[in-house]
């Protein structure tokens, strides 16, 4: 990988110095910004930079919230490729496809390059000075109550700075919104284990029973879990781990399960209680709770054959420790919290808490801990907007106009805000509605710190540093913008920081001791920190509370079939497109969906039996109609889905976001009903009921698989063997 003859010490030295060099170049008013040079001058290059020799800088992947540590390969001043940082406990040198595509976020041709002020239907390029002045003017005389700041998940120093900025107005309206965040899980975990996000040791489990947790795809920290999964498959003590996945629509994880159990949508909790019942090991409260859930009833309500329940229970009894995971598919209902609680209860009953569910390490700086996003925040914001409460609205790293459920009519609500400022990389749907769009540096150009929500081993703070000079002269880092804005309010306090880099450096060095800096001098410590890209901390961890309470646990019987809208709509989350913010990265658009192999478009997954009933064939354009509108997409016959459900992937159907995203597919967010989890107030993503009708049009589905689909036609291509026929412990 390294083509130079450096040894490791030299390499680190170079990285350290280069960090400084980048800092000096990247944040001052360089000749690049003056437009004199394009990227790097070869007349006076930094001495670590040798043409044709790559250098590597560590940073943090910003494509999702998992916080994987990455190493960027830089040559001739350009970042070429992102690799995993081998020293990271989270991803150990590995990356997912989404992470690989980070460079396409950076080099995307549709990035916003100038501050844009709305003028009629058009955006007019203005200067930063004018933009700041305008914000100051709009904020003049506005009380903290009348300001709303909408963001995606934020953590680290950016969160601190943002908090300080909002404090300067006395504003408490920080809405942290993530469309597909595991918010119900957090609440349920808090109740069951005492922490929102414990550590799941898949690698130590002999059986993993997952209720719709797509931990190999898009759930929480997939790269980390994928590695654990590989170890789990190799087995503890030579015994290969068994994965059982319970869900209504097959996820990537389900496709890798030893047994994929299809369950009636929303009855995951009932099945969990049924398994507890079948185990027969529970006592007291729990035993009383599950008494009613005998095999016959559970089987009837969930559609899982009684024999299957017995087998799962027997296996769980036989092989210990095991791990039970509650995923978003089980949680996306009005009784989602109850489902999750029932599933978590299973971990208690099986004695997994403390073994495969462990307390995670916590970063000892609570102010930097992630502000985790959820959808309840959006509802509050939406209500506030509708009430006309907000005169100024800031939006950062969230695209609610695209991701809010159609029933919310968020776009109309947004129009009621007085002045809307969007900090944006691209003109996404929300930025299109803004009055002022401020262009951001890409994640590969910006400084930052990040604290991952899911801690893999010890606690860690991730460093994000520029991997190359700015591509566009007039973009700014979010931290720099916040600093500039806060200076307008508290000039005295912040005047010592020239820029966000200085702020960050000072903030880190102030806590050198706590961050493990010891007696090293400031420069050395700072440079080492940058070169590592990770600050690993001893951290502390709260003990798990072994609270297996069943109080308040009550699961509704499965909903009766709605005659008008007989089908459940399952909006599926793909590992690469997530909530749609990355849809403009062409590698991801062209990367086939693992299960359907479809590219560049949306589809409606229907079980072949249901399709036969409705006389739908592959490629038929079907109309999916719910209470809040309809979408039209191509049908794909998919065996891994409950016949009473259909599934449409999230992420496509953009009306903005640039050439690679706009006009491809449909957006199922648009037709989601506004049903919320009763306990947490989170949007119940899976509660929308729909009907499907043929439109009469038909297209050829653009996909990678051939016309015989996933058949091997009697050829020995992908071969499977039963676990009793191999001896894994003798393998290399």
């Amino acid at each position: 990988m390294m083509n130079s003859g450096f040894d490791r010490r030299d390499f680190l030295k170079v990285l350290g110095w280069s960090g400084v060099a980048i800092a000096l170049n990247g944040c001052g008013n360089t000749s690049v910004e003056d437009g004199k040079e394009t990227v790097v001058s070869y007349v006076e290059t930094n001495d670590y930079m040798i043409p044709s020799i790559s250098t590597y800088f560590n940073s943090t992947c910003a494509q999702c919230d998992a916080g994987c540590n990455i190493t960027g390969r830089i040559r001739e001043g350009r970042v070429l490729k992102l690799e995993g940082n081998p020293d990271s406990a989270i991803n150990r040198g590995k990356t997912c496809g989404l992470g690989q595509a980070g460079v396409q976020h950076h080099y995307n041709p549709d990035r916003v390059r100038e501050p844009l002020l709305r003028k009629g239907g058009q955006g007019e390029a203005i200067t930063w000075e004018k933009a700041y002045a305008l914000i100051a003017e709009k904020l003049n005389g506005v009380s903290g109550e009348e300001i709303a700041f909408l963001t995606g998940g934020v953590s680290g120093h950016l969160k601190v700075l943002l908090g300080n900025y909002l404090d300067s107005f006395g504003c408490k309206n920080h809405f942290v919104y993530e469309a597909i965040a595991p918010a119900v899980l957090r609440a349920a975990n808090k109740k069951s284990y005492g922490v929102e996000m414990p550590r799941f040791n898949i690698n130590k489990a002999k059986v993993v029973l997952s209720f719709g947790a797509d931990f190999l795809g898009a759930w929480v920290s997939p790269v980390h879990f994928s590695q654990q999964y590989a170890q789990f498959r190799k087995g503890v003590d030579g015994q290969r781990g068994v994965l059982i996945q319970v869900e209504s629509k097959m996820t990537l994880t389900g496709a890798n399960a030893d047994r994929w159990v299809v369950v009636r949508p929303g009855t995951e909790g009932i099945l969990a209680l049924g398994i507890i019942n079948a185990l027969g090991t529970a006592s007291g409260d729990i035993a009383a709770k599950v008494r009613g859930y005998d095999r016959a009833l559970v089987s009837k309500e969930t559609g899982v054959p009684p024999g299957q329940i017995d087998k799962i229970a027997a296996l769980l009894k036989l092989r210990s420790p095991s791990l039970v995971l509650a995923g978003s598919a089980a949680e996306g209902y009005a009784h989602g919290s109850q489902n999750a609680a029932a599933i978590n209860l299973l971990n208690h009953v099986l004695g997994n808490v403390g073994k495969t569910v462990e307390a995670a390490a916590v970063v000892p700086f609570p102010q930097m801990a992630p502000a985790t996003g959820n959808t309840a925040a959006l509802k509050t914001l939406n209500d506030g907007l509708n009430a006309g409460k907000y005169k100024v609205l800031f939006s950062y790293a969230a695209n609610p106009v695209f991701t809010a459920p159609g029933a919310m009519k968020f776009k109309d609500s947004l129009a009621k805000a007085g002045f809307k400022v969007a900090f944006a990389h691209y003109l996404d749907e929300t930025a299109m509605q803004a009055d002022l769009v401020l262009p951001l540096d890409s994640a590969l150009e910006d400084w930052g710190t990040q604290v991952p929500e899911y801690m893999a081993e010890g606690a860690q703070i991730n460093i994000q540093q520029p991997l190359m000079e700015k591509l566009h002269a007039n973009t700014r880092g979010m931290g720099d913008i916040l600093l500039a804005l806060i200076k307008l309010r508290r000039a005295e306090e912040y005047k010592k920081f020239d820029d966000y880099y200085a702020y960050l450096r000072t903030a880190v060095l102030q806590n050198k001791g706590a961050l493990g800096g010891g007696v090293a001098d400031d420069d050395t410590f700072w440079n080492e920190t940058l070169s590592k890209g990770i600050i690993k901390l001893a951290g502390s961890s709260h003990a798990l509370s072994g609270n297996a309470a069943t109080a308040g646990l009550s699961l509704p019987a499965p909903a009766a079939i709605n005659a008008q809208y007989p089908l459940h709509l399952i909006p599926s989350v793909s590992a690469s497109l997530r909530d749609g913010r990355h849809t403009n990265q062409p590698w991801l658009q062209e990367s086939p969906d693992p299960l359907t192999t479809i590219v560049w478009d949306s589809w409606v997954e229907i079980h072949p039996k249901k399709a036969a009933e409705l006389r739908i064939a592959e490629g038929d354009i079907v109309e999916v109609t719910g209470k809040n509108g309809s979408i039209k997409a191509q049908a794909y016959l998919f065996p891994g889905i409950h016949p009473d459900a259909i599934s449409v992937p999230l992420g496509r159907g953009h009306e903005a976001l640039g050439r690679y995203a706009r006009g491809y597919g449909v957006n199922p967010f648009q037709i989601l009903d506004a049903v919320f989890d009763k306990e947490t107030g989170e949007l119940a993503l899976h509660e929308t009921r729909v009907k499907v009708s043929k439109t009469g049009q038909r297209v050829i589905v653009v996909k990678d698989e051939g016309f015989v689909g996933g058949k091997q036609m009697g050829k020995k291509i992908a071969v499977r063997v039963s676990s009793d026929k191999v001896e894994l412990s003798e393998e290399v």
Partner: protein
Amino acid sequence: MSVNNLLENWSQFRHFHPVDDKPHDPYKWAMSIDLDACTGCNACSVACYAENNLPVVGKEKYAHGQAMHWMRIERYWDEDDRDFPDQGAQFLPMMCQQCEAAPCETVCPVAATNHTADGLNSQVYNRCIGSRYCSANCPYKVRYFNWYDYPTDDNVWPAEMNQQLNPDVTVRGKGVMEKCTFCVQRLHAAKGAARSEGRIVRDGEVQTACQQACPASAISFGNLVDPESRVHKQWKAQQVELDKEEQTKDKKEEGGSELRGYRIFEELRPYPSVMYLERVRESAV
């Protein structure tokens, strides 16, 4: 002079190179892919796009079957007519198998695809005239032809995007065939670095892009003739030999061998350099 050379070294030229009596020395690059670890997540494929300057062809061309993914993830279902795939799907990463006796090599009219000394099936873009005979003769269909001139297509690498292109790998113009190279640019760099230290490349010093990305570490890659390499050990443990079309496993009764290493289409005798390890499914459930 050519005829002199021909006559003097006659016996050498009649060797069946390289599968039988001339083992690769000191390198024979090979791979093994554990299908039990592979999750089908596509990270390898995207990493390949990033490393090897693969063009994104767009929806319309993809629809015409003109995609350029050197590494494709295939998804297979059980063929047993059950209502639900209750044993999951099977994923298979498929790329050029770098065959030892590659069917593509012999048919190229201009010798643009050849066997290298380190056991790769090379593709010389400059030499290729685009007869597509290699693709026609490839049993795995892992060769990808440049049906259009992607480097000049504005939607493939627009102004900023082309700064991401890996300078170690050329972009391919229209009319040439391309395929997985086992990241030959990385191999070259590693071999060069090792040579300057007077040794051969150690196991783990060089990774292919797919291997490096794979979150489940399902792919291992290395020098098959190096007894210390993981790949060598894996092949040995699975008793898979490079120049055989029938392995120990095939001779045993079904499932009686406790081995799970196999190569696809061995019976056609291309002697592929990629060994797959069968996916395992729990018998207890």
